[in-house]
C-alpha cells in the first residue's frame, strides 16, 4: 500500500459538549468541511465508497448505526459503506480501511468519517456502557471486572510504571501541562486553557495514581478525510499527503493474560508493521499525534512506538524534547487531553492534525518539518489490546 494512497482533504468540527447538535448535524458539518478542504474542488459524486467510524452505537443511546446511517445522512446512498467499530482506535482504523479500499484498486476516491456523541448521557453512563469510566463491566463476570474501566486499567499501568521505571505523578502531570498548552493554539480543541503542574496534582484523584487532569474529557465530535489514488491526487489538490505506512496491532483481551504493564504490545506491533511498510524508522518522523487518553499512556506510547527506549520518556519530556518546538513534538494539537475523546472521531481528528501540519497550515501551532513525515496513533479496547498507527508524508 506504501505510496499508493493520498489524502486530498480533511475536515473536522470543534470538539466539545455539543448538546445543540445531533449525530447527523455533526456528521454533515465534518463532511462539508472536508469537501471544502479539497482545495481544487471535488464533486461529491466522485466519492465511490465510504467507511463510517462509530464506536458506541446503541449502548449510549445513539441508536443502532450502520454503514447506511452515514450515506443516507450525506445524501450518497449510491455508494457502499461499512460501519467500523474497533474500540478507541476506531477513527484511525476507519482511515486505514478507506486507504485499503483505494489500495485494493476497487475505488479511486473514498471517504472516511467518524462521529461520536458522548455527552448526551452522564460520563458514568456513556463510558460505563462499554465498561469504561471509573469502571463497570465488559460483558465478563463481575467478579473480575468490578471497577476496572479505562481509568482503573491505565492507573494500574501507572502504578507499575512508577514501580519499574521510577516514574512519578509529576512526570504524568507534565504531559497534561504540555498538551493543554498546545491545545490553547488549536481552535478545534474542547478545552483551550493552560494547566499548571500544581493544578494537575491538586485536582481530585480519580484512580490513584491518576488525577482528574491526568484523564481526557468526555466529548462530542466528528472528523473526516477523503483519500484517493496517489496518481490522481494532484487533480484535487496542490498539497496531497501520502500514506506510507498503516497497521493495526493486537494483543490479549484480558488484563491477566498480559505480561507487561509498562508496555502495550498492541502499540509495539502496530508501529513495527507501519514502519516496515513505510521503509522507515522512528527517527525519520518529525512529529506525532499519540493517543493520550491518560497522561501515563502518552509516556508509554512514546516508548512503544519506538521514539525512545523504555523508561526514557519522562526525562525527555521534562527536558522539553516533546514540546511543540522541541526535537520531536508530541501532540502539537493538544491531543486527547485538550480535544477530548469522541472515540470514532478521535483518530480522524489526529489525521486532520497530521495533514494540516504537513501542509504547513497549522498556524500558531505549526511544528518545524524536516523530513515532512507525521505519525498518528490510537490504542485502546479491553486490556488496551488493539492499536493503530498511520504514517503520513508530504512526498510519495
Amino acid at each position, binding site marked *: 500500500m506504501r505510496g499508493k494512497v493520498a489524502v486530498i482533504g480533511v475536515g473536522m468540527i470543534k470538539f466539545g459538549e455539543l448538546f445543540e447538535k445531533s449525530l447527523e448535524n455533526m456528521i454533515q458539518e465534518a463532511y462539508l468541511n472536508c469537501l471544502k478542504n479539497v482545495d481544487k474542488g471535488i464533486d461529491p459524486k466522485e466519492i465511490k465508497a465510504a467507511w463510517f467510524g462509530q464506536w458506541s452505537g446503541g449502548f449510549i443511546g445513539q441508536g443502532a448505526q450502520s454503514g447506511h446511517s452515514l450515506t443516507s445522512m450525506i445524501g450518497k446512498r449510491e455508494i457502499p459503506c461499512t460501519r467500523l467499530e474497533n474500540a478507541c482506535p476506531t477513527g484511525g482504523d476507519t482511515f486505514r480501511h478507506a486507504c485499503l479500499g483505494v489500495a485494493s484498486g476497487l475505488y479511486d476516491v473514498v471517504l472516511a468519517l467518524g462521529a461520536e456523541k458522548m455527552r448526551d448521557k452522564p460520563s*458514568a*453512563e456513556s463510558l*460505563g*456502557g462499554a465498561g469504561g*469510566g*471509573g*469502571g*463497570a*463491566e465488559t*460483558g*465478563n*463476570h*463481575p*467478579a*473480575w471486572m*468490578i*471497577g*476496572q474501566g479505562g*481509568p*482503573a486499567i491505565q*492507573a*494500574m*499501568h*501507572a*502504578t*507499575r510504571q512508577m*514501580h519499574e521505571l521510577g516514574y512519578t505523578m509529576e512526570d504524568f502531570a507534565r504531559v497534561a501541562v504540555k498538551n493543554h498548552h498546545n491545545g490553547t493554539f488549536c481552535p478545534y480543541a474542547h478545552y483551550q486553557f493552560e494547566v499548571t503542574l500544581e493544578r494537575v496534582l491538586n485536582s*481530585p*484523584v*480519580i*484512580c*490513584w*495514581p*491518576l488525577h482528574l487532569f491526568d484523564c481526557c474529557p468526555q466529548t462530542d465530535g466528528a472528523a473526516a478525510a477523503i483519500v484517493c489514488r496517489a496518481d490522481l491526487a494532484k487533480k484535487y489538490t496542490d498539497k496531497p499527503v501520502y500514506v506510507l505506512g498503516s497497521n493495526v496491532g493486537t494483543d*490479549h*483481551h*484480558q*488484563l*491477566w*493474560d498480559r505480561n507487561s*504493564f509498562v508496555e502495550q504490545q498492541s502499540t509495539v506491533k502496530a508501529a513495527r508493521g507501519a514502519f516496515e511498510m513505510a521503509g522507515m524508522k522512528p527517527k525519520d518522523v518529525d512529529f506525532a499525534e499519540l493517543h493520550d487518553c491518560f497522561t501515563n499512556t502518552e509516556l508509554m506510547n512514546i516508548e512503544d512506538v519506538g521514539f525512545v527506549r523504555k523508561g526514557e520518556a519522562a526525562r525527555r519530556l521534562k527536558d522539553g524534547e516533546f514540546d511543540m518546538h522541541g526535537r520531536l513534538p508530541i501532540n502539537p494539537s493538544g491531543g486527547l487531553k485538550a480535544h477530548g475523546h469522541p472515540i470514532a472521531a478521535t483518530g480522524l481528528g489526529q489525521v486532520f492534525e497530521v495533514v494540516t501540519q504537513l501542509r504547513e497550515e497549522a498556524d500558531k501551532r505549526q511544528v518545524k518539518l524536516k523530513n515532512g513525515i507525521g505519525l498518528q496513533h490510537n490504542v485502546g479496547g479491553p486490556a488496551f489490546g488493539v492499536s493503530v498507527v498511520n504514517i503520513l508524508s508530504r512526498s510519495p
Partner: protein
Amino acid sequence: MTQPAPASPVFWRFNPEVFRLIGIKCKDCSHISYPRTMICHECGSQKLEEYQLPKKGTVHTFCVNWAPPPQFEPPIMPVIVDLEGGGRYQGLMTEFGAPEDVKIGAKVEMVLRKLTTDRGLNVYGYKFRLVEE
C-alpha cells in the same frame, strides 16, 4: 449501566472459574489462564489441561479507584495478583486498613466475599486480603 444479572448464563457458565478457581495451563508454553478455553491465548496451542489456581500470591499492580460504579462505596482497590506457581488473577482488595497498606509485592490471599447486590440477589466471588507476615 447494565451488569449481567446474577441469574444470567454468565454466572453459571463461569462458576468453575469464579468459585472453584479452575483454570487452564498450556502444555506447550505453560501459560496459565481462565476461563477455560480450547485454544491457548498466548501461543495458540490446543494442548491444554485443567489447572487448579492457588489462592495465594503477591500484588503485581493495583490502583485506588475513587470513582467506582454507583453501587460501591469509594475507594475500591482493583488488583492484579501474581499467583504462586504462575498465572494471574484479577479482583478487588478487601479488609485493608488504609489504601497505603497495599503495595506491589505485598502477599495476599483469596477470601470468598459478597461482591455486590444486583436486583435483590447477592453476587459472591473471591476478593484478596493482605496476609499477615
